[in-house]
């Protein structure tokens, strides 16, 4: 099992700034149709200011449950989540969320979709117009501000989702397998674009994925979850230099990290 895995397991290098997010001894159990189901077990993780953390795990290991708890939509059964030093006890507006599917409102223009969080929070959309346009520029969508989502490709729609996630200057950006609905080529390009956007915006990111390559390419730190019930079996710092361009994929260090993670999945026989 996990404890026997040798390798570059290391504790996160604790930064001087206080952590944005602390997840402590988190456990989730819910009533399924066949009795109690344990989704997460004794999970710990910390994300510092401006840090990009990827949670890597097989399907059904409770990754999405983790995201719902961090965003305050679901209450944990045990343990607690602290965001900016405050315990999360319900929905709070300090996070931005990017979903698996673009999840846009098809009856609103791209610009209005980006402004949805502002409107829901009761702030003035006019006041945020320039910021929204800036985010659309960052995501390469300036020319599409007045288009409707169904006029955009899947990759473009997902970029609108990212811009929407950043509009209210969140303390933490939660991304739930944001590229899993895209085809392989778009997916690779989107990962590179996300890195550019992140280098610009420097937000703390919790990035949930089941793609080893995506995790190594994007993250400062990778947290590997086991099969259900999900618990941390590995914490891996990614020491590749940024920006990580497309040729980094063929570099020896990338290959090494990739092989390490992959071998790790093979041991438990649960690669997605």
């Amino acid at each position, binding site marked *: 099992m996990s404890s026997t895995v040798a390798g570059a397991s290391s504790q996160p290098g604790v930064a001087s700034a206080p952590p944005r997010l602390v997840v402590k001894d988190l456990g989730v159990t819910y009533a399924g149709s066949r009795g109690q189901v344990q989704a997460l077990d004794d999970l710990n993780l910390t994300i510092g200011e401006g840090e990009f953390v990827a949670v890597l795990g097989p399907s059904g290991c409770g990754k999405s449950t983790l995201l*719902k708890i961090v*965003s*305050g*939509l679901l209450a944990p059964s045990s343990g607690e989540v602290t965001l900016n030093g405050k315990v999360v006890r*319900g*929905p*709070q*507006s300090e*996070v931005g*969320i990017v*979903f*698996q*599917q673009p*999840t846009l*409102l*098809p*009856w609103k223009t791209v610009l209005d979709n980006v402004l*949805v*969080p502002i409107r*829901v*929070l009761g702030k003035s959309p006019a006041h945020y117009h320039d910021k929204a346009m800036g985010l659309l520029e960052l995501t390469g969508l300036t020319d599409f501000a007045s288009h*409707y*989502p*169904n006029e955009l490709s899947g990759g473009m729609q997902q970029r609108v989702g990212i811009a929407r996630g950043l509009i209210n200057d969140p303390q933490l950006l939660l991304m739930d397998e944001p590229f899993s609905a895209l085809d392989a080529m778009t997916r690779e390009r989107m990962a590179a674009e996300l890195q550019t956007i992140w280098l610009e915006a420097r937000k703390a990111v919790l990035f949930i994925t089941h793609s080893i390559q995506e995790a190594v390419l994007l993250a400062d730190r990778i947290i590997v979850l086991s099969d259900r019930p999900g618990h941390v079996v590995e914490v891996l710092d990614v020491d590749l230099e940024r920006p990580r361009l497309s040729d980094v994929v063929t570099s020896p260090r990338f290959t090494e990290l990739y092989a390490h993670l992959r071998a790790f999945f093979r041991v438990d026989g649960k690669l997605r």
Partner: protein
Amino acid sequence: MSERLKNWLSPSLTFVALLLVWQGVTTSGSVPDYLIPPPSRVGAAMWTVYTTGTILPHLAATATEMILGFTAGSIAALIAACIVAEFREVERCVYPFIVALQSVPKVALAPLLIVWFGFGIASKVVLVGLICFFPVFVNAMTGLQAARPELVDLYRAFSATRWRIFWDVKLPSAAGAIFAGLQVGLVLALLGAVVGEFVAAQEGLGSLIQASSLNFDVPVMFVCIVTLAALGATASAIVRALHRRIVFWEGPRAASATTTKQNGHA
């Protein structure tokens, strides 16, 4: 020849061909013309009833019953669907009864409604309203509950009020399904009005058909049927145009697919 012209010309030619066959068969004497009058006599009858205006009060009565009943039934259905879809407890209490009532053939209530509301327009409006209620209600409820959970989660993550989620996410998500229900309701509305008039009425195309049947005036019966078809087609075209305009984000293909799928609820 352009595609557009072809699309328009092909059905027109088919129509003319059908009229010619109809005329040929009826004038050849193989079918007695008091059973199936030739199109020329139907045309003549149509000219007479419209120029003398004898059909107009009947047309007005049927159209009024249909429009009033459809509007009242649809509004009631929309309000009920919103309440039932939004409040789990209300759904638990009333949904079984609504399903049970849905399987009652509403036209069977026509004689009872005549007893309650009289021979005039009121009994037909109530009948039409009842008939329209169910397809609109079921479609609206299905649509409201089919809003994407991620969208609702997004709004909830920003502490949106229930009213805001309903207004911003659920209602627009349901718009396509609601229009599919209105489309079905409209067809049934015309049916309800005519059946109501068959049972008992002083005016209306349904009562005119019945009176003409007793007088053996087959051409006027044909005229009434053609008028009803035109009335239904016009109303349907108006609702379709509104559908396209209001639910602009769903393509015409998607809209027609929903309509066909939801027809089962009628």
